């Protein structure tokens, strides 16, 4: 059944309608050149199925047969980013600036954290805590 179908397709030169992957797989299965001595010439309009004026898609079968299968294609290579690039690689970061900023923010925070806590706040905590224990 499959053999006769292939014969039919080959006879009517229909391989031009198949996707490149299907075409290459079919060629591999049959282990023989697609069109033998009479390759399809682009521009010809064979009468298929008795119908008239059927437009055939111009395909260069040899070029398509040499295309790799989808599974063999390699994904496009992304450009190498420097190790200090941002989370999504939007732009490379400046390590000098980041180190400086880190230090500045630490200094700012520590300066504020070393300030004495307002007495009224401590008093409030102690009072509320005592009330809570009694209640």
């Amino acid at each position: 059944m499959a053999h006769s179908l292939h014969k039919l397709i080959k006879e009517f030169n229909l391989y031009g309608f198949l996707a490149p992957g299907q075409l290459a797989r079919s060629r591999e299965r049959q282990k023989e050149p697609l069109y033998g001595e009479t390759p399809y010439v682009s521009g010809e309009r064979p009468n298929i199925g008795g119908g008239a004026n059927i437009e055939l898609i111009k395909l260069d079968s040899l070029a398509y047969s040499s295309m790799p299968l989808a599974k063999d294609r390699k994904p496009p290579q992304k450009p190498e980013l420097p190790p200090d690039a941002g989370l999504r690689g939007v732009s490379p970061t400046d390590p000098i600036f980041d180190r400086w900023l880190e230090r500045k923010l630490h200094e700012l925070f520590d300066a504020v954290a070393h300030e004495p806590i307002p007495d009224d706040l401590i008093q409030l905590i102690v009072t509320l805590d005592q009330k809570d224990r009694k209640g």
Partner: protein
Amino acid sequence: MPESLEDSTFQELLLGSLPRLRAYAILLTKDRTRADDLLQESVLRALCAKHQFQPGTNFNAWIHRILHNQFISFLRQQRRPMTTLEDVSESYLSQPAGQDDKILTQEVVRALGRLPQGQREALILISSSGMSYDEAASVLGCSVGTVKSRVWRARRQMERLILDNESDSDDRTSSPRIVNRISDMLDAHS
């Protein structure tokens, strides 16, 4: 592990966390008076909810989370434009330092005040307060990835604000100059 904390232990934890909590509130609100109000409100909430704290878990993250929630409520209620962050740096600026260093500190404070709230919180928790990404995520109620993303964006925004401000205020060659000054300071510290 005890079922609940002793009252004295809870009070000790609370009093011990106050300095860093207050510093976080000041950098967050950009205003000392408002920061103290926020801190007081958060402490009251923490005392009311002290039975909800599970011993053995991170008290620092727990109390910071309360303050974060309180801060969000403050923002929703007030809807007032924030005042400047100038006074945040007054204690730091009162320390002896070079003129360049003081100017740069003011720049950092100004840029920090212009960050979006989410980015500012993440940057303060990670870069200033020294929290881990896990702790910051539990404080902010988001994923670790979100915290990382916010911190990264905050740093880039700070970089733009500080360097662009410098180049706007002066001539075109000042951006490389500020980077050189930063680089010199790092060399001097290391």
